[in-house]
């Protein structure tokens, strides 16, 4: 028994470090993009269109991962695309987290009419297809960075609210909350000082998962050309271009796809790894 | 010639303590043997080992289990399971959890006849109806179509008894079959098992912690303490004069229906301490034997 548990922990630790490592690398690339990207991500050169990556015959020196149909450097666009992806992940993730967790805490701890309204809203939200809802919101708000962030917050707050509500309810039923009441602490004080710290691990896990979702939503929106202006490098936009020229230039699709795949996988594995870390049974 | 013969069976938790220590016992054809001990003595483990349903964490360290002339432990797993299914059966402890909630009663009795023994559906159903009548279930045809949750605990235990006898097994292991039932139902079920056993002439291994039950049902008995056999005797001899100090103390601790005023005597500390010393000596001897063998092999 003990052996199995330590093996699970070691494997969990490994995946925690691998995913954190990839995300850290990505963050460095995004921050240093203007200085380390080998080419200007917007520079077009129609004579250098669809050049293959460096190990293939006919590759152009200096363009490591090849070029797209307009002759733009794929590697530089991936590096610059990381900026938008991570920006959306952090800002939209954090905003969703704060709003969703607050509503969830209110519903789960205060109960009463707050719970009634919030739960009913969650039910209604569950009846919307999220991708369609986000596209609809972007159509209403108009494309742009802020529209993407608002759309993610509006759609995904229920992810936090649902889970935190349930957690707050079960925590609220415990004796330590009752004793805080006896000690004369107010409801708001109890919620912030007693309940919040206990649901914090869950919030952190959900936040990590939400950042991965935000990255995907941004990619999907730029894939359907509703993100920011179509010239700016985005992973989703690159994937859309790669999809349409897949039989002529596979690398335009493959490299941004691998980057996106690893990023989404890392956020999710980081979240799962943290969940195991926080789980008192495994600790 | 005994029908079931367990030889030197030693069980242990994987990388953990021993649960049974070289237990041997025999059951002759048509004989009823009681298997008695406190909870944790390992009496249920013997039944589970015979039927091949030990929990995953328990391993057989040594021993043989001869059933109808074959050492079960020498057979490959699939063959062993078939052999057990064809010659032995279990009456489980808790009737409330031992029937599959999503199947009707009928198939739960007849399926093994059809799938393991190759009977026709009609024959199997007829047999099941006979057996349900034999265990005094009113309106067997309706009960065959019921789901378990529609029946009482006593009814379900009767069904499990009928099911155990369905394939005419030569050996039945009854694992505390009355413990989970109401006191009033207990007696009926006990009488039912005894009657069925007598009519079908099945060998029966009756696992219980209740010496009173043993005196009513069994011909021979084995007393276990901490995974060791402390006494193996005929019931008449045992109740007349138990040989081992622990058995005597256990007998004294059993309430007597004839003389409730006598009260309950706990098993004295001195007795349990002496048995525990025996167990520890056994473990030491086993461990040093294993170490020596390990050294010889290495």
């Amino acid at each position: 028994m003990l052996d199995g548990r330590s093996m699970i922990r070691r494997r969990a630790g490994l995946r925690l470090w691998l995913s954190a490592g990839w995300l850290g690398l990505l963050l460095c690339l995004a921050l240093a993009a203007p200085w380390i990207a080998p080419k200007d991500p917007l520079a077009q050169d129609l004579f250098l269109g669809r050049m293959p990556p460096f190990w293939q015959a006919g590759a152009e020196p200096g363009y490591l991962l090849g070029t797209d149909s307009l002759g733009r450097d794929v590697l530089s666009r991936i590096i610059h695309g990381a900026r938008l992806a991570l920006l959306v992940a952090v800002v939209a993730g954090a905003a969703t987290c704060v709003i969703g967790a607050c509503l969830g805490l209110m519903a789960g701890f205060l109960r009463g009419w707050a719970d009634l309204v919030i739960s009913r809203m969650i039910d209604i939200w569950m009846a919307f297809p999220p991708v369609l809802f986000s596209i609809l919101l972007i159509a209403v708000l108009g494309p742009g960075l802020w529209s993407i962030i608002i759309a993610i917050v509006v759609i995904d707050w229920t992810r936090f609210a649902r889970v935190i509500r349930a957690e707050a309810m079960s925590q609220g039923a415990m004796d330590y909350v009752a004793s805080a009441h006896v000690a004369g602490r107010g409801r708001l004080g109890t919620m912030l000082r007693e309940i919040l710290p206990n649901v914090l691990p869950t919030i952190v896990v959900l936040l990590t998962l939400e950042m991965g979702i935000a990255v995907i939503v941004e990619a999907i929106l730029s894939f359907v050309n509703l993100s920011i202006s179509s010239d700016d490098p985005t992973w989703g936009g690159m994937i859309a271009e790669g999809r349409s020229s897949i039989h002529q230039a596979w690398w335009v699709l493959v490299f941004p796809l691998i980057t996106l795949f690893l990023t989404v996988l890392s956020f999710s594995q980081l979240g799962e790894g943290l969940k195991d870390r926080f789980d008192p049974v495994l600790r | 010639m005994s029908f079931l013969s367990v030889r030197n069976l030693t069980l242990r938790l994987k990388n953990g303590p021993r649960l049974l220590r070289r237990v041997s016992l025999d059951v002759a054809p048509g004989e009823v043997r009681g298997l008695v001990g406190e909870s944790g003595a390992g009496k249920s483990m013997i039944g589970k080992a015979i039927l091949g349903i030990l929990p995953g964490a328990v391993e057989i360290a040594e021993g043989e289990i001869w059933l109808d002339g074959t050492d079960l432990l020498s057979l490959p797993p699939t063959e062993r399971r078939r052999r057990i299914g064809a010659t032995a059966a279990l009456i489980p402890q808790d009737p409330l959890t031992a029937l599959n909630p999503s199947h009707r009663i009928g198939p739960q009795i007849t399926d093994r006849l059809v799938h393991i023994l190759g009977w026709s559906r009609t024959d199997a159903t007829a047999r099941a109806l006979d057996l349900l009548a034999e265990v005094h279930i009113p309106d067997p045809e309706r009960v065959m179509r019921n789901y378990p949750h529609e029946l009482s605990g006593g009814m379900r235990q009767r069904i499990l008894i009928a099911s155990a006898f369905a394939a005419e097994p030569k050996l039945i292991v009854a694992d505390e079959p009355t413990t989970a039932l109401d006191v009033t139902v207990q007696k009926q079920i006990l009488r039912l098992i005894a009657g069925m056993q007598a009519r079908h002439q099945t060998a029966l291994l009756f696992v219980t912690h209740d010496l009173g039950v043993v005196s009513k049902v069994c011909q021979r008995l084995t007393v276990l303490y901490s995974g060791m056999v402390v006494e193996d005797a005929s019931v008449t001899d045992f109740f007349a004069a138990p040989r081992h100090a622990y058995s005597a103390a256990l007998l004294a601790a059993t309430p007597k229906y004839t003389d409730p005023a006598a009260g309950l005597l706990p098993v004295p500390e001195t007795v349990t301490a002496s048995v525990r010393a025996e167990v520890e000596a056994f473990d030491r001897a086993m461990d040093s034997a294993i170490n020596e063998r390990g050294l010889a092999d290495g």
Partner: protein
Amino acid sequence: MQILRILLMRLTTTAITLLGVAIIVFFVIRVVPGNPVAMMLPPGATEDDIARLNALYGLDKSLVAQFGIWLSGVVQGDFGTSITSRQPVLGLVLGRLPATLELSIMALVIACLLGGAAALTGTRYRGTRTEAAIDVADGVALSVPDFLWGLVLILLFGVLVPIFHISGRVTPSLDLPFTTNFYLFESLLRLRLDLWADIVSHMFMPALALAIPLAAIIGQLLKQSLKETMNLDYVTLARTKGYGETRVILREALRNAALPTLTLVGVQFTFLIGGTVIIERLFSYEGLGNMAIDAVINRDLPLIQGIVILFAVIFTAVNLAVDLLYAVLNPRLRHA
């Protein structure tokens, strides 16, 4: 009796949910800058024309009154007219619905088969390397959304080993004798296996992309539940009856273990249907989702409204169906 009561309760909450959906869809779309009616008229229309059309559509009334008009139309099946195609929205939407339904159901079937197989194999070989490998595969499949699986599948089976079609619903040059839009079912009913094979070859990739995350969820939940069930007394008793381990898992444990998985699969199935929007786009599959994205790009508001409402109806219907199925499959509820 109990089923009836559950049904009534669920119908009430469903109605409330759908009303909420209608309110949100209506007001979100009315926030859109720009007058939707102005977009319906040819360039050069006078202010007077716009005012007349506004009156015709009730746009000169208060928002609440407009909502009332719109909702009563929706309830009677009048979702308005598409701005781009000038056809009734209901007809357009219902024409595309079969394509999306077929895709979703095929994906669900694939997910159940894959997930069930993973769970059963994991249970049969519990504690071995096989189980560990299945766990890792489940974890990765679950972490990555259908959109990315779709792209991976396009690369693997559309480009690297091109054995499946990666765009469209059917090869355009084929002559279709169909009267309904349920191509998959109708080709089978008409015994046109050549067409059926072509349609399946088009649908398989998008359906698999949708199915992979759901298969992983089913695999994990079902295995967890199977493992718990395998320790129950009636399963142990079945082992003494001589059945093989595989039969014990399939016949004794599976049905009881599947019950708790079922409700969760229901919720997950709605997520799968939601995923069709982007997957249809990715595979140029002519279903509702693809139409929705076109409608958004063309700012065809009545069409968007119609599609969103239809999706919401499907979602709530699926949840309702799962609850009822649960009640029917659980013998304790059925006979209580």
